[in-house]
């Protein structure tokens, strides 16, 4: 009974604080403090600082600011222009044409940056005007971009995976390795969708690109090659066990600085803005991690995580069923919160559960990222429909009535924004209405849910590579 009571108190205080827009990190501390005071006799403040200090001064965490910094440096180079110009000549032969630059561009930039907002901004800034001027349909430009940008969360270096790894004490290198194939498969799915769209729709086609000699093609992608080289060095050094995740990040920063110096875009201004920007992002994540560390300590004292794990064991819930439940749970959570917060918020409870169910934690990390990615582009209605429709039919509720009800909800949803964060970034860039952007993203949501299924059916996609690295730590 105490556990039920504890769950209720935790959830109530959490939603109260988060809902009243207290900063996430401080809100987590507040919840944890309430838990400590109510359920234990330990001095809350002292336990809090001990945990936070141990977490904040840990060496594992140093990969975080360095990877952020690497992305920031390349973000401020002329990489985005070169990304489009360099990719276009190679991709124009594919059915669907230059729309593929969205996917390929996001995949490459995802490999140097750990956040999907940065990926979206970087690629979109250049590709949206270029694709528009060539007459590609607007909904495809925006939809593919919204979907592909989420690859930033999956393809290493991924900030979400670092945070996940730090929260559950798993090797970051392994998690990074696990993200590679699912990320590539997902980007393959997006490209397949563009090809599919090309053959199934009729209508005016954009003009084919003018022919270009091979030498010219190489010249256009001159800057792209070193960036891809950097990606290979960073990931390769981790894979071969030559460097830890932190050291690979340091190599990445030095490489990014060198590249931007050669490109001529490195000056005091870009250097200092990239450094200050990285400092802010890293401190933002650090504060959330501090709050999360205290919260998981506090929850540990209440015995809640153990009770939940025992509950799973007691019910004999199969891993598949547990995964299905968690998918829905994270999709809903992810629509209201950003990915990082939803990971740290739930790990204290979910980790014992998945360990109890015998699920591989590395695999689960990748799974989590796919689901969160999906949630970032999910318009609330699309999801609600998929899950709710069969339910309301079974419950004998009038579907027509429900349609009206939904319209009201949609209208409300258009003024309140509990929609994926990516859609907002796109809104800022394209000045389209959020409803329109959400609609263009729906096929991508479908693809990403397909990815969840693929990941459940073929878990080796995530687990094979990390099991085969020569790891240092």
């Amino acid at each position, binding site marked *: 009974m105490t556990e039920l009571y504890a769950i209720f108190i935790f959830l109530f205080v959490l939603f109260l604080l988060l*809902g009243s*827009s207290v900063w996430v*990190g401080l*809100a987590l501390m507040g919840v944890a403090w309430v838990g400590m005071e109510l359920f234990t006799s330990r001095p809350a403040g002292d336990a809090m600082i001990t945990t936070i200090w141990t977490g*904040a001064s840990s060496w594992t965490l140093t990969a975080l600011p*360095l990877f952020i910094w690497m992305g920031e440096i390349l973000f401020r180079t002329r990489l985005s222009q070169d990304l489009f110009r360099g990719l276009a000549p190679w991709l124009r032969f594919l059915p669907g044409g230059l729309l593929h630059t969205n996917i390929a561009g996001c995949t490459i930039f995802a490999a140097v940056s750990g956040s999907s907002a940065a990926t979206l901004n970087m690629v979109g800034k250049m590709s949206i005007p270029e694709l528009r001027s060539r007459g590609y349909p607007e909904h495809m430009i925006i939809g593919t971009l919204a979907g592909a940008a989420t690859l930033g969360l999956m393809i290493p270096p991924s900030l979400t995976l670092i945070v996940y790894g730090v929260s559950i004490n798993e090797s970051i290198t392994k998690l990074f390795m696990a993200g590679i194939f699912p990320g590539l498969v997902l980007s393959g799915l997006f490209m397949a969708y563009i090809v599919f769209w090309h053959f199934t729709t009729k209508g005016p086609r954009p003009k084919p690109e003018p022919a270009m000699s091979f030498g010219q093609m190489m010249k256009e992608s001159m800057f792209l090659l070193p960036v891809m080289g950097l990606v290979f060095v960073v990931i390769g050094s981790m894979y071969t066990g030559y460097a830890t995740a932190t050291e690979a990040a*340091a190599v990445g920063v030095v490489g990014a600085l060198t590249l931007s110096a050669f490109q001529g875009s490195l000056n005091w201004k870009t250097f200092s803005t990239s*450094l200050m920007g990285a400092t802010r992002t890293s401190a933002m994540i650090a504060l959330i991690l501090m709050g999360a560390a205290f919260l998981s300590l506090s929850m540990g004292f209440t015995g809640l995580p153990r009770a939940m794990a025992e509950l799973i064991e007691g019910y004999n819930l199969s891993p598949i069923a547990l995964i299905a439940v968690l998918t829905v749970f994270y999709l809903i959570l992810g629509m209201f919160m950003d990915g990082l917060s939803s990971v740290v918020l739930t790990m204290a409870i979910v980790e014992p559960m998945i360990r109890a169910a015998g699920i591989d934690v590395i695999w689960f990390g990748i799974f989590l990222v796919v689901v969160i990615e999906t949630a970032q582009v999910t318009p609330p209605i699309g999801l609600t429909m998929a899950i709710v429709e069969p339910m309301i039919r079974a419950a004998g509720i009038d579907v027509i009535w429900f349609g009206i009800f939904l319209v009201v909800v949609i209208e409300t949803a258009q003024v*309140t924004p509990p929609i994926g964060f990516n859609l907002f970034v796109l809104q800022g860039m394209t000045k389209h209405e959020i409803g329109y952007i959400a609609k263009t993203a729906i096929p991508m949501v479908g693809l990403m849910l397909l990815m969840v299924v693929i990941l459940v059916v073929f878990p080796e996609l995530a687990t094979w590579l990390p099991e085969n690295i020569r790891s240092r730590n």
Partner: protein
Amino acid sequence: MRDWQPILGLPLWFWLFIAPSLFALFCLYNRNIARRIITPVWRVLDPIYKISGVIAASFMAIILCLIVGQMVSRWTGTVFPGGTEFAGYAMACTSFFALAYTLNHGAHIRVSIFLNMNDFLRYWLDAFAMLISAITATYFARYAVKTNFFSEMLNDRTQGLDQVPEWVLTVVATFGTWPWNWSELWASSSSDMVYTPVWLPQIAMSIGTILLAIAVWDNLYRLLINKVTSIKSETVE
């Protein structure tokens, strides 16, 4: 030492939580007087936030140097004792020094669904959230400082192999004591290497959390006085 020892006849929690809240009320009802009182303070605080951000950024550069140094020493076969510990300390310094600076640049994330609903909520809910945040941050800072003092009292040392020269500790300790103790302090100090005491890197935690607490209270006052939040976020991070 009790947690809320009285100062000037009133318990510490009065000075940390009640007094700043009372000033917030004062700001709400006497905007113009409050503005005149607090403007000189703002002139001092703004550069401090900025400087702490710059300090945090330089520690990030130090992390890079430490990691690169560690790799180079591994290639060349020399030993770099305690490199990982130092990188960890630098990490803590980056995080803690940047807290307030990050807050003022709107980079700390929050759930802003209700905040963006209408102007009434934008003002009152933000004020409420800042009050709660300020109290939490003050609590955080109070115990960070306490832990820092305790680490010094118990002479808590690192568990790693990292060592620092003793004169560095003495330089820092000089600022923490009265001038008439300085001669004694320096006389008893040597230039040997000693295992890093935990209180040294923890100073970053104390300073950073105090600054964060001040910054949150400060932003609350600015909101109440100016009627608009002074936290401006960059478009996309």
